[in-house]
């Protein structure tokens, strides 16, 4: 027989709430994408269309400019739709607590994990790869553990040993020189 027990989700498992938050997300996403498209369009326009080496149709910036225009156009459409939806619903729906929303999403754990990874990436090239990798696994395994410190440490040590063994094998077989 098989039995599976799942604990109640604490954070990070809530489905994304719909309604005005979706519209808000659409609007914010569109602003970000619009920024990217404007950035690329401006940079593409700085590449000359005519040159002794090329005509307008072989200009190195022409394709990027077209794609930036397509991206910007579609983003405008999504942004306009998001803004319109948000304005329509803002009076009818209850304002959500953004702080609670972030907690439910798991922002704390996410930022902590990103910070640990960034430190790991900064250490690469400065300390040996194997050492940094072992450190990453141990920090993750203990920082985000369930229960006692030792309960987190034991599987983390096992995983670290396996990963070091794996990396060493890869290094020897494929001749990769790790940073």
């Amino acid at each position, binding site marked *: 027989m098989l039995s599976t027990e799942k604990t109640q989700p604490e*954070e990070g*498992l809530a489905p994304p709430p719909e309604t005005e938050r979706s519209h808000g997300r659409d609007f914010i996403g569109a602003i970000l*994408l619009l920024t990217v498209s404007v950035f690329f369009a401006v940079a593409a326009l700085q590449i000359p269309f005519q040159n002794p080496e090329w005509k307008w149709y072989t200009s190195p910036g022409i394709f990027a400019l077209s794609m930036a225009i397509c991206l910007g156009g579609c983003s405008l459409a999504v942004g306009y739709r998001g803004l319109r939806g948000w304005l329509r619903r803002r009076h009818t729906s209850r304002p959500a607590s953004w702080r609670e929303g972030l907690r439910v999403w798991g922002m704390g754990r996410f930022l902590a994990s990103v910070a640990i990874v960034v430190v790991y990436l900064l250490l690469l090239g400065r300390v040996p790869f194997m050492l940094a990798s072992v450190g990453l696994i141990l920090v993750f395994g203990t920082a985000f553990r369930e229960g006692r410190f030792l309960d987190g440490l034991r599987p983390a040590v096992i995983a670290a040993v396996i990963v070091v063994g794996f990396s060493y094998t890869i290094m020897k077989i494929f001749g990769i020189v790790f940073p």
Partner: protein
Amino acid sequence: MDILSILRGLGGLFLDPVTLIYVFIGSQAGILFGMMPGLTTTTALSLLTGLTFSLAPEKAIAVILGAYVGSVTGGSRSAILINIPGTPAQAAVCLDGYPLALQGKAAQAIGLSVTASTLGTLIGFISLALFTPILGALALRFGTWEFFWLAVFGVVIAGSLCAPKDPVKGWIAGFLGLLLNTVGDDGIHGVPRFTFGYNQFSGGFSLIPVLIGAYGVPEVLNAVRKRERMIIQTMVDRVIPRFREVLQHRWIILRSSFIGIIIGIVPGVGSDTAAWLSYFTAKRGSKHPEQFGKGSVEGLIAAETGDNACIGGDIIPTLTLAIPGSAPAAVLLAAMTIHNLRPGPMLVAEQPQVVGQIIAISMVSTVAVFVLSLLWVRQMVRLLLIPRDVLMPAVFIICVTGAYALSGRLFDIYIMFAFGLVGILMQELDYPVGPFVLGFILGPMAEDNLRRGLVITAGDPSPFFTRPIALVLFALLVLSILGPTGVGRRIQSRVVALWSNK
């Protein structure tokens, strides 16, 4: 390419035990990756592409194809046992696999799902052998103008199908991929674009770090973000299914295989779509639709078969047109390119033995996955007990290894992480990652063919709209854009109204 090429490929494979061992290694690695929740087929293939870079081409492809088949099949293990799909494509398997496990039929469910996967994969590969020469011959008529439209059509249709509720977001993802691909030296004049004086950018973004970043890193960070504990107590009895039981569902297997192959051929659409479509088609045609979702063997078989038949379908456009049918097929395309095997019509026409070898490796991989999936079931299940907080950083290090191994640049690791954050942002804002990656892959094909086409005609764009195949592709592109939008629906209703008035 004919049946002889495949037989020759099979013969060559059996005479080369080292490659055969690599097939089994790849298959086992694929099963492990597939069954681990959060690790996708694309992640597995991206990592292995980096790691097998220094191997001979046929051995590297053997590992990657084995892993492809293995990971698609392996994902059903966790779907059945803990109700968490190993890969997104197995979400449909959860619906009936897990209720079957709760009824004490876990072993039967695993056995049937593995058998259905194997049959689906084999049927998919038979279609690959049949369709590849036909499509390859057709592709020989394609010129630069047709390839441009094909690339754009691939990105747009992937956008429409990956974001069916909001296709504009799918197209945006595709355009973003096409745009970011232009970073680096221009392919025709060698002019640096968007590098801002930073030399590392002049080579552009390498595909493998981008793929690992977009698919692997979000899985790692999301798994850490989510807090979830699972306790599994399992005892698996007889796994190998009875022949009669499989034969009883032959029509579901055939129908789902057909669906999987067709979905696979469509660029950018993955096996998850195939699994769901097969599942709902089986439900509609079933005598007991009420059992679906409560432990229906038909539902389980349909989802598994459709999911796996997609692999063969995925590889058809990848080999013949160099247009990947899905994200894992895109990695396969990248892997082949890295090893100087250039997929496309010329590969089929000039090197049919390579295509035969690929089909032979795929078929042997299917058998290897079948054998390995039914072995060590109990031991494999124990791996699901590893805490995610420990597993995921280990996976992250493997991601780093995969991104770094290809060219030995720290820059690639940073790119991987940056694209990982882009992937998370896209997920949170409801933009599909598939078309983004496809845009990234098809970007050079679209740009080079557009500019080459215009150079040939000295700036005259008319061949893009007047050549017969180009015109058909352009019409398909317009239809795929108008279809899901309000304009398309209005045109459709107007046509229907006119037709009914007549």
